[in-house]
């Protein structure tokens, strides 16, 4: 059980807060946050030596000035219920995501991408091979690849042929 979830469960209950400077604040917990900052209402503030008392309607206490907080005993039992309702949510979301959403699409994705790579690499391989053959002046393909190679490398010659 997290101390801050216990505190959150204590909202609306009477609590006692002791600050690091020794002052205590008795009041109803209105609100609290993840930094233990709290809002109290109907507060009685007591000095360090318990000799002075102030009545305060509402107050805000910064979390890092708190030494400890005393909460009613019964609240600790309320938190347990809250945690039990929270716990099932965590494994459920993980299971769903791993079984249906995450793993299977990953598999498909890999399959597609590898196929894609295979095609593209084959394509490159052919073009480079045929270029080489083109150099040896084989038929058909060799001519076409020669054409590409020449057009990209020697544009001047390509034009020259056009005139021829």
């Amino acid at each position, binding site marked *: *059980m*997290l*101390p*801050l*979830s*216990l*505190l959150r469960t204590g909202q609306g209950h009477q609590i006692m807060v002791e600050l*690091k400077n020794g002052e205590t604040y008795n009041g109803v917990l209105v609100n609290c946050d993840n930094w*233990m900052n709290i809002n109290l209402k109907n507060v009685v503030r007591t000095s360090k030596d318990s000799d002075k008392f102030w009545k305060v309607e509402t107050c805000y206490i910064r*979390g*890092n000035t*708190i*030494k*400890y*907080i*005393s*909460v*009613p*005993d019964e*609240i*600790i039992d309320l938190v347990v219920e809250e945690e039990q309702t929270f716990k099932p949510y965590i494994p459920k979301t993980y299971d769903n995501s791993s079984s249906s959403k995450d793993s299977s699409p990953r598999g498909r994705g890999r399959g597609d991408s590898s196929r894609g790579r295979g095609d593209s690499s084959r394509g490159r391989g052919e073009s480079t091979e045929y270029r080489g053959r083109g150099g040896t002046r084989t038929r058909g393909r060799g001519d076409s690849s020669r054409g590409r190679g020449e057009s990209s490398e020697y544009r001047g010659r390509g034009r020259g042929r056009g005139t021829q």
Partner: protein
Amino acid sequence: MSLLEPYIKKNVLVLTYDGRNLVGVLRGIDQAVNIILESCHERIYSEEGIQKFPLGVHIIRGDDVAVVGEIDKELDDKLDLPSIVADPLKPIVY
């Protein structure tokens, strides 16, 4: 996860920065070492022996926690606290 996790639901003694000596059942902890103590009491050391002061459920802010130790309940029950006379701890000044 946390080194304090093995102590959960066990009887522990907590020494705080202001020199207090709290004993109770450790019910919860978090990253900041904020601590929940259930059925907690303070042991006040004085010339009249150790006095117990019941406190109920306490949330101790991590800033204030100096030491957490497990209590051997059998051994602890054998102690005759009112007959033990010792000076209280001084607060830690920082």
